[in-house]
């Protein structure tokens, strides 16, 4: 184990960790937007909207994220979509996690007792009002923990963009291996930084979950 080398390259791994965090934050934000739209579509009364929502979830969840990224980044220009690697990474990962989060959100909304909606309707609330004032606040609390699981997966998923040449943690490790021939050290360093990010986020999610649950 070459500790000197690890210490010398450590600052550059920290910079790469920042890129990983940026990718995680932006793509998760985009994923939440996609998921909100996807959930809306899947629970809609319009057949067309429902079909769009179902297709989105099925196709994205039915194919590997790596392939989706490749199609967007390498294939996109063939049909006139020109993105740099970071943009393609954020959009590809965001749209991907959005499909999984759609299922999480939909599950939480369905899990809120049906009787609740009916009671609200009986009390004279419209369908939209019942959803907004009765179902969603309860569903939101149910969502925190499973969405946390989605986000955890997303942070690890950012490693995929190494394959489209975004210089984040994994690609930084790979590039250093190219000149140092020290795979063990480089991957351990990257792995340790992923763990710090993932467990810090995990603690935040647990804290948030407790807070909303106690209300």
């Amino acid at each position, binding site marked *: 184990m070459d500790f000197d080398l690890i210490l010398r*390259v450590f600052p550059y791994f920290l910079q790469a960790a920042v890129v990983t965090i940026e990718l995680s934050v932006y793509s998760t934000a985009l994923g939440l937007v996609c998921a909100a739209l996807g959930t809306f579509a899947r629970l809609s009364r319009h057949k067309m909207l429902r079909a769009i929502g179902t297709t989105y979830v099925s196709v994205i969840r039915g194919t590997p994220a790596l392939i989706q990224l490749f199609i967007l980044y390498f294939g*996109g220009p063939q*049909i006139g979509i020109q993105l740099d690697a970071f943009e393609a990474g954020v959009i590809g990962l965001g749209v991907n996690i959005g499909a999984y989060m759609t299922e999480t959100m939909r599950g939480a909304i369905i899990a809120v007792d049906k009787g609740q909606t009916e009671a609200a309707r009986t009390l004279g609330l419209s369908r939209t009002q019942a959803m907004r004032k009765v179902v969603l606040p309860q569903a939101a609390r149910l969502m925190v923990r499973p969405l946390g699981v989605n986000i955890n997966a997303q942070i690890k998923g950012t490693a995929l963009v190494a*394959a489209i040449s975004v210089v984040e943690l994994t690609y930084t490790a790979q590039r250093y291996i190219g000149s140092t021939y020290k795979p063990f050290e480089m991957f351990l360093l990257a792995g340790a930084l992923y763990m710090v990010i993932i467990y810090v986020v995990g603690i935040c999610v647990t804290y948030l979950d407790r807070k909303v649950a106690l209300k």
Partner: protein
Amino acid sequence: MKTISNLFKSALAAGVMVVATLGVSQSVQADELDTIKENGVMRIAMSGAYPPFNFVNEQNEVVGFDPAIGAEIAKRLGVEVEVVTTAWDGIIGGLLANKYDAIVGSMSITDERKKVVDFVGPYYRMSRGIFVKQGSDVADLAGLEGRKIGVTLGETHEQWAQEQEGWEVRTYKGLPELLLELDNGRIDAIVTDDIPVLLAIRENGNAITQLDTSGLAGVADQAGIAIRKGNPELHKAMQAALDAIQEDGTYLAIAEEWVGGDIR
């Protein structure tokens, strides 16, 4: 097939309209020399895993012979240089996909590649080498039959190795993996350009020896700089810059610094 592709096109175009606005739109007609000068930057691509031609130093900067040549050409065109590293097997795809303006990454000029890209250069001469571990029982080409041979996916050597009778060819993403795997003993030989390996032996003391392959015909290749087709102005300007670099001694200085000698 035409209708299917049109269908895909329209469906996808509709779906990702929002996405497309983020991208850079540029007119197809104009020679890219104008675009590069307008942007003030030339983006050059390489694998970043090919010392001494291109690799990442401890400060996480991409350095070596290729970026030095690329930077010098950019300087003479009056623009900045931006180095992109990407997997070798997707590097031409990336150029065609306009992810960068040129590949200055030790790419050998081949007829197959010439069908899809234009080459500036050549800017150095490379030759095919076959390497085995020190103390290996493989003594010559014939001894490689039935052995595991490592190559880099997308290199000319990959195709050549695939064509050989009785070789078990395994593809990897780059030279570092090849050297690691040869050292590990997972593969019996590697086929690659010889200079990087000879340098690795000299610098890191890798226990590797080169097979005598002097009997092989046509093993010498020329390395060129790949650009997208249909850019005569860019081609002319880059070629002129490269010629000037070779004439005024800059080339020799760069070659001395990174490779330790003239490699034309």
